């Protein structure tokens, strides 16, 4: 199975649910298990929320980009914003660290992404935006049939 989809949507919080459901629907074609689907929905939700809150500081007139690729039983997701970027990526990745404690952020976003996916890569430049590239190998029923 080789397939690809791209999405662009406005940086409004209503689209957090849209994004995770859309990616889950795309991945459903290779028949992932329920745990894998939940993990994928959660990490998409985390990265899109980061783009909206941190990348664009809740400016709803910006765009968030998602690109998903399925190669055999591996999923690759790229979530991108063209917002303010991250000054210190190592600090941002620390569990419980948040740059916005006043908004009751838990600081667990990147920790969850790293726990639920096989690989997480963050490419970010201040003033240019942030790309979060994540990959996950899925234990699909196709694998089990081999």
């Amino acid at each position, binding site marked *: 199975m080789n397939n690809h989809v791209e999405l662009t949507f406005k940086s409004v919080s*209503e689209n957090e*649910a849209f994004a995770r459901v859309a990616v889950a629907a795309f991945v459903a074609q290779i028949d992932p298990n329920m745990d894998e689907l939940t993990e994928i929905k*959660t990490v998409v*939700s985390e990265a899109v929320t980061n783009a909206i809150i941190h990348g664009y500081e809740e400016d709803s007139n910006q765009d968030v980009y998602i690109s998903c690729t399925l190669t055999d039983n591996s999923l690759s997701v790229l979530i991108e914003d063209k917002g303010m970027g991250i000054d210190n990526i190592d600090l941002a990745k620390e569990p419980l660290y948040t740059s916005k404690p006043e908004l009751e952020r838990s600081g667990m976003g990147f*920790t*969850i992404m790293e726990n639920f996916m096989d690989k997480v890569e963050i490419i970010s430049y201040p003033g240019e935006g942030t790309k979060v590239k994540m990959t996950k190998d899925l234990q699909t029923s196709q694998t089990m049939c081999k």
Partner: protein
Amino acid sequence: MQLQTQFTVIQDVLIVRLDGELDHHSAARLKIEWQEQLRHQGVKHVILNLDSLQFMDSSGLGVVLGRYKEVKQLGGEMIVCSVNPAVKRLFNMSGLFKIVRLEMNEDYALSSLGVAS
């Protein structure tokens, strides 16, 4: 799916039942409603029932942590019950179970606070 919230007060316990999906979008309204409920006369403890919660991400952890701090100010305790395995993983990952007690269901949670349901 939108988040539906039901608040019930029994003696000094506020029961919060969530149904649907808790993310950054739904967390904003939940925070306001929950804070309003905590201002009710005599409320001290909170039981958070997640039996019908279908999805939660780290924004949910933030709201729970925020309310935990307010319950602590009231001298009360926060208990979470009927947690599904996916949400349990998030709570474990963030260390929230070190400060928020886990009970199997609402009845156990109530009786642990000395309230007959």
